[in-house]
């Protein structure tokens, strides 16, 4: 049934992209030709040239350097937030599914309450109240995606909970946490991984949305989304300062997704499913 498998080629492309971005995140700042905030040229929105491989930004700063720094922030914050939401959401989702109806209800209502408040407005309030820092950004983005993860995890876990093999194990007299850990969790890793992959993409995009409404990284630091945002006025003239960070975001998120999709297919083969 290799019909259902994702092609390996896309997986390799994804892997290459992810490794590339991890390398950029690690080594980028060291490779940057100019310091983060330095104005290197009088002219703004310069096109690509040998002096400035990706042109200059709205203040005349080197775009390549800013992307090399920005990738680190984007990857760190996006990944940390997505993982935070994924772990918390999955754990709570499974917990709710195997717990009593009362616990399930309470938890679900609380998650509903949390997710009913739009993420950007939640972020707006929290940043206005607590100030802006990297740790806080991770937490805000993580928290605003937790209910989403929770709902999907719970929905999957509830479905699995009805499956024959779980019922068999339950009939065997296994405890709730055994069921959760051994029977339910392993069977929902793949959809949850897909979800976390998407959440990472969303976290990166929420981060850039936050920069749109004036929240986000402290200058002169900037994540990739902020780079797009701060140079948006160069879009009309097609400046690389706005296009390049957007391409960077696209390559990063596509890479992560391709890899996750591919892992999903391979995991199935390995465990002999299908």
């Amino acid at each position: 049934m290799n019909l259902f498998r994702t092609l390996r080629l896309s997986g390799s492309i994804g892997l290459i992209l992810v490794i590339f971005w991890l390398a950029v995140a690690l080594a980028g700042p060291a490779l940057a030709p100019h310091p983060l905030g330095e104005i290197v040229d009088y002219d703004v929105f310069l096109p690509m040239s040998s002096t400035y491989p990706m042109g200059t930004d709205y203040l005349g700063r080197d775009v390549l350097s800013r992307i090399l720094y920005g990738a680190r922030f984007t990857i760190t914050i996006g990944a940390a937030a997505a993982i935070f939401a994924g772990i918390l959401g999955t754990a709570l989702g499974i917990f709710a599914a195997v717990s009593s109806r009362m616990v399930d209800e309470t938890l679900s209502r609380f998650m509903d309450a949390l997710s009913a408040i739009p993420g950007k407005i939640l972020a707006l309030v929290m940043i206005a109240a607590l100030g802006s820092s990297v740790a806080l950004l991770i937490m805000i983005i993580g928290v605003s995606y937790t209910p989403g993860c929770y709902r999907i995890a719970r929905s999957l876990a509830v479905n699995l909970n009805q499956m024959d093999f779980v019922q068999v194990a339950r009939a065997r007299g296994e405890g709730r946490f055994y069921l959760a850990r051994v029977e339910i969790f392993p069977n929902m890793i793949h959809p949850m991984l897909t979800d976390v992959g998407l959440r990472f993409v969303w976290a990166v995009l929420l981060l850039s949305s936050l920069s749109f409404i004036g929240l986000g990284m402290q200058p002169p630091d900037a994540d990739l989304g902020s780079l797009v945002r701060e140079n948006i006025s160069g879009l009309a003239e097609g400046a690389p300062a706005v296009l390049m960070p957007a391409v960077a975001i696209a390559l990063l998120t596509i890479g992560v997704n391709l890899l996750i999709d591919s892992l999903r297919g391979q995991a199935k083969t390995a465990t002999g499913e299908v």
Partner: protein
Amino acid sequence: MKSVLFLILRRIGTVLLTLFLVSMVVFSLSSLLPGDAAQQLLGQSATPEAVAALREVLGLDKPGHLRYLDWLRGLIVGDPGISLANDLPVAQLVAERLPRSLLLAGIAALVSVPLALTLGIASAMYGGTRVDRFLNTLTLTMVAIPEFLVATTLVLVFAVKLNWVSALSYAPPGASFGQFIAAYALPVLTLFFVLVAQMARMSRAAVLDQLSQPYVEMAVLKGASLPRVVLRHALPNAIGPIANAVALSLSYLLGGVIIVEVIFNYPGIASLMVDSVANRDMPLLQTCAMIFCAAYLLLVLIADICAIVSNPKLRT
């Protein structure tokens, strides 16, 4: 069917509880905010005396929890109070914005949901083939571009360069069908970009998940065709997670569209709420939160009903 009805009734009961929870969460969050409506209204001109005088006028000299209870009492009898920022009834402010938000959300949903589901299911049906890869890359790319870049690019191309549509999404009352399309085309297209990927990818994943179940393998072994397997066997079981993904995506259409509202200058309810945060306008903030919450709960309720109806096992 009796048990379904009972479940639904019980759910509606909990909706009220959740609404109350949200108002508590919003109240606690907003009490963290530095400053109050009096300071915000006076802005740079907030001298201590002026602030004290205005606080008295606005009733801010009362403790926060008392004002919250007042507001709650008002809400129960159907009066969400008076906006602190401009003395207008909250109900009037909301009545001006909410229909617009619902209209935009409705159109966006109408366009996005069928397309997203079609894309997702088609992708799953042709899993691993060129079609799947193409659709996959397409949705990935769509989700990977920040929405303000999408929106701005659309404006630059279709409004400024080509002059086909308006840069502002504003259809005057009594607008013709053409004007209507011109006003809504770009924001709907932007929202489409944002929504489709999430929904298409989640529905693809859900269907693929079902396709990996043993019962599907049985059906295939029995000689059922692939579309038939997907539509008759996998899809009904995948409806739960799909409905969930759709509900989550659609809930974004009311509160999450702040960027679309800003760029297209669309007077919707998200910007009303952002204003209410900036102005520390608690009655308005709370009321907006209630609206988002109610809309969200409604969507979730529908998703749950779909799941319950489609999967008899959940009815117990």
